[in-house]
């Protein structure tokens, strides 16, 4: 608890104590925090679990404090809660992930009715500035990771460089522009459920592709371009042979593959098959990770098709993106999901 004579002084205290991400925050006054606790529909002392690496208790009140600082609106609390529950799943290896020297950050992809309700962007510039919900929700999770999880750069968060997605890394799938079923349904959820899907990811690597509808090889060219990006020999996926990766297909590129008769699972399977290097190729860059063996062996960058989180987002045009992952940790920093429990929120008296 800090005491300050005004909000300007409070902001300086928060900066000095290392509680911010370096940008100005909304001061978490008692009233503001209570408002978001109420919006959560849970008691303030409900403990979602210990957050690594510091092991702080992720109580609803602490989430609300960080969500206030991030600028969240009450309706966005349900998404923050779901995202924190997701990254606390043991399969996500949060404590190890926060401590690694790799530049990984939790990429949050939201599906379902909550996308429209909270105005989470999935189109043009969805991972860039100018989208309040995306910025606030992602930032809230990051502030939780810092202030509850205890991640501090160079002390406990040992990312050598990091990336801008460590400020905020949240977007929606553009379900309306997708030729396929929503991403979350591919993982067993129904289309009327709101779900957040999270994986630890690098910054997006742009993949340029020019379609030519008169070229029958066009869909295969797109798959090859994506597969090379997945298997890029600078990635942990290629060197450690496994882990998850994400692909944000822009609607135009997704349509090229759908028009070729490919479902989402077809694309995942093809990319998993195609995203390979030979052992010799990997060894020519790095000898520290790859096991000994025949240099002609094909080494997959991704072990299972479902480890390729394939979603539709961004404006329509030339560019899609591949997000390699850290691919390490006890569970290889698995992809995690959590339902956004919008029905648990209280009726908000100020609405």
């Amino acid at each position, binding site marked *: 608890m800090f005491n300050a004579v005004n909000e300007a002084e409070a902001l300086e205290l928060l900066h000095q104590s290392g509680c911010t991400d370096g940008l100005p925050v909304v001061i978490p006054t008692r009233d503001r925090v209570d408002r978001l606790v109420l919006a959560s529909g849970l008691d303030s002392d409900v403990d979602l679990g210990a957050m690594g690496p510091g092991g702080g208790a992720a109580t609803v009140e602490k989430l609300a404090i960080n969500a206030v600082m991030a600028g969240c609106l009450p309706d966005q609390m349900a998404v923050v809660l779901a995202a924190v529950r997701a990254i606390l799943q043991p399969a996500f290896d949060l404590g190890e992930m926060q401590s690694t020297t790799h530049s990984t950050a939790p990429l949050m992809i939201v599906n379902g009715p909550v996308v429209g309700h909270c105005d989470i962007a999935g189109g043009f510039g969805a991972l860039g500035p100018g989208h309040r919900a995306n910025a606030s929700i992602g930032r809230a999770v990051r502030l939780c990771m810092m202030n509850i999880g205890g991640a501090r750069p160079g002390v406990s968060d040992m990312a050598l460089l990091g990336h801008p997605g460590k400020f905020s890394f949240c977007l929606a799938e553009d379900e309306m522009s997708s030729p396929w079923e929503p991403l979350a349904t591919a993982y067993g959820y129904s289309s009327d459920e709101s779900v957040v899907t999270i994986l630890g990811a690098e910054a997006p690597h742009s993949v340029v592709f*020019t*379609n*030519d*509808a*008169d070229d029958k090889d*066009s869909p295969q060219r797109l798959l090859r371009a994506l597969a090379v990006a997945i298997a890029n020999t600078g990635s942990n996926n290629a060197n450690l042979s496994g882990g998850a990766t994400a692909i944000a297909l822009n609607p*135009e590129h997704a349509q090229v593959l759908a028009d070729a008769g490919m479902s989402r699972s077809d694309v995942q399977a093809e990319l998993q098959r195609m995203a390979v290097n030979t052992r010799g190729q990997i060894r020519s860059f790095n000898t520290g990770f790859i096991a000994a063996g025949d240099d002609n062996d094909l080494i997959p960058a991704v072990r299972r098709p479902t480890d390729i989180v394939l979603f539709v987002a961004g*404006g*329509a*045009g030339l560019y899609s993106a591949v997000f390699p992952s850290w691919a390490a940790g006890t569970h290889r920093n698995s992809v995690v999901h959590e339902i956004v429990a919008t029905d648990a929120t209280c009726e908000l008296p100020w609405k």
Partner: protein
Amino acid sequence: MRDGIEVARRGIAAVALVTEQFWLQGDSVATSAGMPDIPRLRLPHPVAGSGHDAMERVAQGIAARIVAVLSGSAAPDNELTSAV
């Protein structure tokens, strides 16, 4: 858009062709380039890469309107949009 504006500034009738996905950007560029009322017509998206036949259909479908807007006998889409 900027090409259309440059042509119009030379006193030559011009119409900018803008695909659906970039319609809002077209408004923004027209305004920032100082000619917010530059006539523009809306095309489907994508045009590039859609194949010879599809591009020919787009061209066939829009050619008469381009001529009509250039000759002043029809309103461009941005005037129709702003009238809504």
